[in-house]
C-alpha cells in the first residue's frame, strides 16, 4: 500500500526532471553508435585477420563494444537519481513525508531500476541487431547457442551498473564525490586491474569485470576464469546487494 504510493511518487519525480531523459538517451545513443562503429571496422579488417584470431572472434561481444562508454551514462543516471535528493535538500521533504526510510529507499531504487532495466534491455537488443547488421557475413544470430543469454545479459549488466551506482550514491550522498569515484573506477581502474597480470586474479572479481563475462559467447583462448557467465553476473549482483545494504545502513542511521 505505502510502497505503491511511494513508487508512484518516485515515478513522478524521475520523469519530471530533464536529467533522466538526458542520461538514459545518452546511454542508448553512445552504446549503439560505438557498437555499430566497432562492428563496421571489424568487418573491414576481417580480411587481414589470422585464423587464430578468427577462431576467437566473438561477433556478439563486438556488437556490445559501445557499452564501455554507454555504462558511464548509466552510472550518471544512477548517481543523479539518488544524490539529487541530497544536493537539492529535497531529501528532507521526502523523508518528512515518508518517515520509514527503508520504504523510501526501496521504492526509489525499485522505480529507477525498472526504468534502467527497460532502457538497458532495449539498448542491448538494439546494439546486438545493429551490430550484426554491420558485421554482415561475420555476424551471428539469436538462435546460435549462448547468444540470447549474452544479449539478455547485456541488458541486465547495464541495469546492475546503474543500481550499483545508486547504492554508492546513497552512501556518499554527494553527486560529485560519487561520480568522481565511479567514473574513473569503471572507465580506467577496473580495466587496468582486470588486465594487468599481477592484479588479474583479484581484478576479475570486480563488479564490471565479473558481470561483463555474460556478454561473451565465444570462449577466450587459454581462459582460466573460475566462474562462468551466470556466475560472473552473480558476483556482480553480490556487489550490488552490498552497495545497497551499505546505502540503507547509512540512510537509516544518519541525519538527513
Amino acid at each position, binding site marked *: 500500500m505505502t510502497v505503491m504510493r511511494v513508487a508512484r511518487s518516485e515515478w513522478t519525480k524521475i520523469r519530471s526532471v530533464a536529467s533522466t531523459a538526458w542520461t538514459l538517451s545518452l546511454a542508448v545513443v553512445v552504446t549503439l553508435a560505438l557498437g555499430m562503429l566497432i562492428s563496421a571496422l571489424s568487418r573491414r579488417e576481417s580480411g587481414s585477420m589470422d585464423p587464430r584470431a578468427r577462431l576467437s572472434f566473438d561477433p556478439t561481444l563486438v556488437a556490445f563494444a559501445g557499452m564501455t562508454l554507454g555504462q558511464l551514462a548509466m552510472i550518471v543516471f544512477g548517481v543523479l537519481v539518488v544524490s539529487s535528493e541530497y544536493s537539492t535538500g*529535497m531529501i528532507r521533504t521526502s523523508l518528512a*513525508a515518508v*518517515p520509514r526510510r527503508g520504504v523510501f529507499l526501496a521504492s526509489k531504487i525499485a522505480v529507477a531500476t525498472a526504468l534502467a532495466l527497460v532502457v538497458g534491455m532495449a539498448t542491448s537488443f538494439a546494439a546486438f541487431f545493429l551490430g550484426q547488421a554491420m558485421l554482415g557475413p561475420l555476424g551471428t544470430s539469436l538462435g546460435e547457442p549462448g547468444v540470447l543469454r549474452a544479449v539478455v545479459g547485456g541488458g541486465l549488466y547495464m541495469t546492475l551498473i546503474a543500481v550499483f551506482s545508486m547504492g554508492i550514491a546513497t552512501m556518499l550522498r554527494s553527486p560529485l564525490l560519487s561520480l568522481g569515484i565511479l567514473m574513473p573506477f569503471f572507465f580506467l581502474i577496473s580495466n587496468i586491474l582486470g588486465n594487468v597480470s599481477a592484479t588479474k586474479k583479484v581484478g576479475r572479481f570486480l563488479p564490471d569485470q565479473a558481470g561483463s563475462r555474460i556478454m561473451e559467447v565465444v570462449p577466450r583462448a587459454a581462459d582460466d576464469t573460475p566462474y562462468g557467465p551466470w556466475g560472473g553476473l552473480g558476483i556482480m549482483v553480490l556487489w550490488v546487494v552490498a552497495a545497497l545494504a551499505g546505502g540503507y545502513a547509512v540512510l537509516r542511521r544518519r541525519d538527513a
Partner: protein
Amino acid sequence: MIEAVGLTKRYGDRTAVDDLTFTVRPGAVTGFLGPNGSGKSTTMRMILGLDNPTSGTVTIGGLPYRKLPNAARQVGALLDARAVHGGRTARDHLLSLAQLSGIPARRVDEVLDVVGLRDVAGKRTKDFSLGMGQRLGIAAALLGDPQVLLFDEPVNGLDPEGIYWVRNLMKELAAEGRTVFVSSHLMSEMAQTADHLIVIGRGRLLADMSVRNFIAANSAGFARVRTPGSEPEQRERLTAALTEAGGQVLPEPDGALRVTGLPLPRISDLAHGAGVRLWELSPHQASLEEAYIRLTQSAVDYRSTADPKAGLTEPLPPGAEPPLPVPGQGQPGWFVPPPSQDPATAGAAPGPQDGTARPFPAPTTSEDPR
C-alpha cells in the same frame, strides 16, 4: 500537540540543542524564537524525525514522528524553501509529495490556488524567487490538510503582502484547532502572529510563556536622562550617584543616559544632591524587540559589531559633528547597548547585574570646549 522532553542534540563537542522541554498546544500559534544558530532548525528537524536526538524525546500526538501512521497526513512542514529540485515544475513537485501520502492529484491545484502559485505551476522551480519558494513550501505543508503544522522562518523573502497573508494563514489554521509551530528570529513578527512564545538561545530554553505575559514581564520601564552635553564631568558625576543608589545606568548613543531601577523623582533628587543640572528626564517603555534582545543577548552566536568604516570616511573638519541617526528613519527606535566582548560587563545581560560603575566610552561627539 508536540511534546519535547529533555531534547538534546550534539554535533561532536558542539551542543546545538541543550535539554529542551516544551509543549506546543493545538488551537494556538506558537512562536519559536531565537537568534540565528540558536538551534531552531535542528529542533524542527528532530520533531520531524530527520535528525536523531542525542538524548531526550520529541513526540507528536504521543508518537515519535517516524512511528506516525501516514505522517504526511498528520503533520505538514516547511523547512527550507530552497529544498526542491530546481528542474522540476511546481506542480510536479507537489504531485510527487501528494502521491507519497496518497493525496488525490486535484488537491495539488487546490493548494496552488491557496498560495497563489497557480499561474506559475508549470514553471521550473529554479526560476522561482525566494518568496515564491516560500509559497511553494507552504503549499507542500498544507497538502495533506494536517492537524500539526511546522514552519521554519516562513516569512523570509516574502513581500509585505505575503507576510500579511502568512500571518493570517497561521491564525486561521490555529483557529481551526490545529497545532501551529512557527520559528522566526524576528520578535516583531512573532508579536503580531503568535499567541504563545518559546524562546531559545544557544539551544537552551529561555522563556516559555504567552505573548501577553512575555510583554508584561519583559517590557520594563526606564528613564532617559540628559545632562548638559558640554560638561561630560556632570554626566560622570550623575552616573556615579545613580549607580551608588542602586540604579543601572547605560549610555545611549546620543550622549543621554538610560536609567533603570530608580523612580523618576528619585533620579531628580539624586541629580540635585550631586549638583548636576538635567536637560532631560523622561519616562520610557522598552519595546518587545528590545526585551527579546536583552533576553537572548548572552546567547547570541553571531554578534555584530559597529562598523568603524575606517578609511572610508574622511576625517571630520574640526568643530563639525557627525550626523546623528534620525529616529524612525532606517534606525530602530530602540537602542541596543554596544556589544561587549566580556559578557560579565554586558550591562543588559540577564541575570544578576553587577552594580559597579563601569568606565564610560569617550563622548561620541567632539564638542567645541568653549
